C-alpha cells in the first residue's frame, strides 16, 4: 500500500466531508448566486424614468375637475409620466406608502406636494415642473439634446457582485473553518487527532487549504452568474481576481481559526463569529459604498480585512486596475490572515 502524505489525507477528508453535505453545498454555492440574482433583478427592473404623479382633484367639481383632467392629459402626452387623479386625502396616503412620488394641485399656480428627503420625489418635482412649464409656453433660451448611454460598470449590480464575492469569502472562511473546528472539538475528534503523531501544523494548513479549494467554484460561479445574467464583465485580469479572492479565502480562514481556537461550544463560536462579522457586513462596502460613513471612521473602516478585499476586487473587476496597484491592500489582507493564523496556532485548544 502507498501511504499518502498526512496533509493530503487531511485535505481529502475535509473535501469529502464537505461535498457529502448537501446543505453546506447550497449555502456556500447556491445561496450567494441566488442573492445576486434577486438583488440584481430588484434593482434592474425598476423603470428608470417613470415618474408617478398624482393630480389632486379639487373639492369643487365644476372648476377643478377640468383643471385636473387637463393637467393629466398634458403630462400623459409626454414620455415618462404615470399620472392618476386622486383626492387630496387619497394622494396623501399614496405618498406616505410610496405608491406615488409627487402630488400636484392644479390651478392658477401649481403646488407640488412631496417629501424632500426622497431622491425620486425631488427628481419628480423637477421633471413635472419642467413638463408643465413647457406646456404652458415656456421657451428655453438654449436648446439641448440627450445622448443616452448605459455603461456596464456603473450600475448597482456592478457594484454588488464584487461585494457579494467578498462577503462570501468572509462567511465561508469564518463559518466554514470556525464551525467545523469547534464541532470537531466537541466531538473530541481534535483530541483524538493530537493523540496520534499528526503534526499540528498539518491539520491547520489542511483546514486553510480546504477553504481555498471550496472557494474556487464559489468565485467562478458568482462571476459567471454576474456575467451571464447581468453582463458584469471583469475589466482587469481574471488571474488577478482569482489571486485576490484566494488571498481573501486564506486570510478569512486564518481569522476563522483564531475565532474558533478556544471555543468549547457551538453557541460560543457563533456569537464570536457574529461579533467579528457584523462590523464588516455594515462597514466594508458590500451593499453600499463604505465611503458613505464619516471621514473620522474611515481609517478604521479601511483597515478592516473585508474592506481591503472588497475595494481591491472592485478596483480590478470594475476599473481594470492591476494587481500591483492594489499592493498595499493585499499586504494588509495577508497580514490579517498571517497574524491570525500564527495566534491561532499558539492558542489553539485541542481538547
Amino acid at each position: 500500500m502507498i501511504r499518502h502524505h498526512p496533509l493530503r489525507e487531511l485535505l481529502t477528508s475535509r473535501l469529502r466531508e464537505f461535498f457529502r453535505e448537501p446543505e453546506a453545498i447550497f449555502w456556500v454555492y447556491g445561496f450567494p448566486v441566488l442573492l445576486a440574482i434577486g438583488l440584481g433583478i430588484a434593482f434592474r427592473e425598476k423603470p428608470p424614468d417613470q415618474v408617478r404623479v398624482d393630480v389632486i382633484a379639487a373639492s369643487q367639481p365644476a372648476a377643478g375637475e377640468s383643471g385636473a383632467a387637463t393637467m393629466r392629459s398634458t403630462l400623459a402626452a409626454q414620455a415618462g409620466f404615470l399620472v392618476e387623479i386622486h383626492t387630496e386625502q387619497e394622494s396623501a396616503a399614496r405618498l406616505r406608502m410610496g405608491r406615488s412620488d409627487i402630488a400636484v394641485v392644479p390651478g392658477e399656480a401649481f403646488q407640488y406636494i412631496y417629501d424632500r428627503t426622497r431622491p425620486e420625489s425631488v427628481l419628480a418635482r423637477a421633471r413635472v415642473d419642467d413638463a408643465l412649464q413647457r406646456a404652458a409656453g415656456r421657451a428655453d433660451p438654449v436648446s439641448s439634446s440627450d445622448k443616452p448611454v448605459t455603461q456596464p460598470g456603473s450600475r448597482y449590480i456592478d457594484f454588488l457582485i464584487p461585494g457579494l464575492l467578498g462577503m462570501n469569502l468572509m462567511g465561508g472562511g469564518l463559518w466554514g473553518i470556525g464551525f467545523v473546528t469547534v464541532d470537531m472539538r466537541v466531538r473530541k475528534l481534535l483530541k483524538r487527532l493530537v493523540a496520534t503523531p499528526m503534526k499540528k501544523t498539518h491539520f491547520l494548513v489542511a483546514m486553510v487549504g480546504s477553504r481555498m479549494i471550496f472557494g474556487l467554484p464559489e468565485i467562478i460561479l458568482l462571476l459567471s452568474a454576474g456575467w451571464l445574467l447581468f453582463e458584469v464583465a471583469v475589466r482587469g485580469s481574471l488571474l488577478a481576481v482569482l489571486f485576490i479572492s484566494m488571498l481573501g479565502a486564506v486570510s478569512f480562514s486564518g481569522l476563522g481559526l483564531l475565532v474558533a481556537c478556544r471555543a468549547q461550544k457551538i453557541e460560543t463560536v457563533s456569537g464570536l463569529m457574529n461579533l467579528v462579522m457584523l462590523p464588516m457586513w455594515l462597514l466594508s462596502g458590500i451593499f453600499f459604498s463604505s465611503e458613505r460613513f464619516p471621514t473620522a471612521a474611515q481609517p478604521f473602516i479601511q483597515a478592516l480585512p473585508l474592506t481591503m478585499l472588497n475595494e481591491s476586487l472592485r478596483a480590478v473587476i470594475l476599473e481594470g486596475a492591476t494587481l500591483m496597484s492594489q499592493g498595499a491592500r493585499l499586504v494588509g489582507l495577508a497580514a490579517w490572515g498571517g497574524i491570525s493564523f500564527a495566534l491561532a496556532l499558539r492558542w489553539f485548544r485541542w481538547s
Partner: protein
Amino acid sequence: MATAELAIHCAGLTKRYESRTGPVDAVNGLDLEVSTGGCFGLLGPNGAGKTTTIEILEGLLAPTSGQVEVLGMAWRRNEDALRQRIGISLQETRFAEKLSVHETLSLFRSFYRKGMEPAAAMDLVSLGEKKGSWVGKLSGGQRQRLAVACALVGDPDLLFLDEPTTGLDPQSRRQLWEIIRDFGARGRTVMLTTHYMDEAERLCDQVAVVDHGKVIALGSPADLIARLGGDHVVEFAVNGAAGQAADAGHHDAGALNEAALMALPAVSGVRMEATGISLTVTQPHVAIPGLLQMLRSESLELARLTTRHVSLEDVFVTLTGRHLRDDQAPSS
C-alpha cells in the same frame, strides 16, 4: 535494566483541578508499574480518577506533580517517538460521520511511519464488510470497534483503551474482549480502564484497583480474590425484626451480629449490607449447614440465600465499603 522491561512507570502522580467548590485532587499520589506484555486494568468506580490517570499516561494531560515514563521514555522529550509507538482509544470519540470506515482508517494510518494496512486493521476488528459504510451509519458496537481499529492501525507496542466497552451490548463486548486478548497475546501491552469487574476479571492479567485517585490494591484478579480468604460468597437475608435491624446496620442486633457470624465454621468474612448479609466462605458445604442451624436456634426465617464465586466487586467492597457501581446513589 529493570525499567526497560516496564511499559509504564509512574510515581507520586497527582492531578489537581480547580473547581467552584475548591481544588479537587482527581489523582492523588498514584504509583504504578506495568510490565511489558499482556493486559493491565485500572478498575474503579466512576470518578475514581481512572480517565485522568490514563490521559496523563497518554501524554494528553500534564500531571500536577509526579514522574511518568512510558516505554522507558518521558513525554516531554520524546513526544513524537512515543506517539509513533502507542495507540489510543479515548472514552468517547465521535469520528467524522460522512467518512467511510476505510477513509477514516487511511487518515489515521497516514500519521504513522510504520503500521498495518487499513484493510488489515478492519479485519482485526471484523469491520471488513463495513469498509465503504459511512461512520454515521454504524452501530454503537461497530463504532467502538472502529475506534479500536484506529488505535491499532499504527501497529503500536502499547495500547491505551479508556472504558472500551461502556454502553455496548454483550455480544459487542465479547468481540472487543477477543480483539484485546489477541493483541496482548502477541507480546504487546494493553492498558485499559473499566468499571466492569467482569471485564477486569476476564481480560486483565494485572489489575490495579483505584479509588479516590490512588491505587488501593494491585495484583492479578486471582490474587486479589484469594486475599479475601475465601472463594465463595454466601448472601442471605432473613424475615422479621432481626433482619431489619441488620438492614439498618445495627450489628449487635439479636444473634445476627458480625462476631457470631464470623464464629461460624469456614466463614472468613462478614459484610452487613442494606439488602442482606454477605459471608465470604472457604467451604460452602461446611458454612451453610452451620448458618442454617444458627438461624433455626434463633427462630429466624430465611428470605433468600444465594451462593456465588468471589469477584473483584467483593474485593472492592471489602476495601472501600462501597460498590463499584452504586446505581441508587451515583457518586459525583
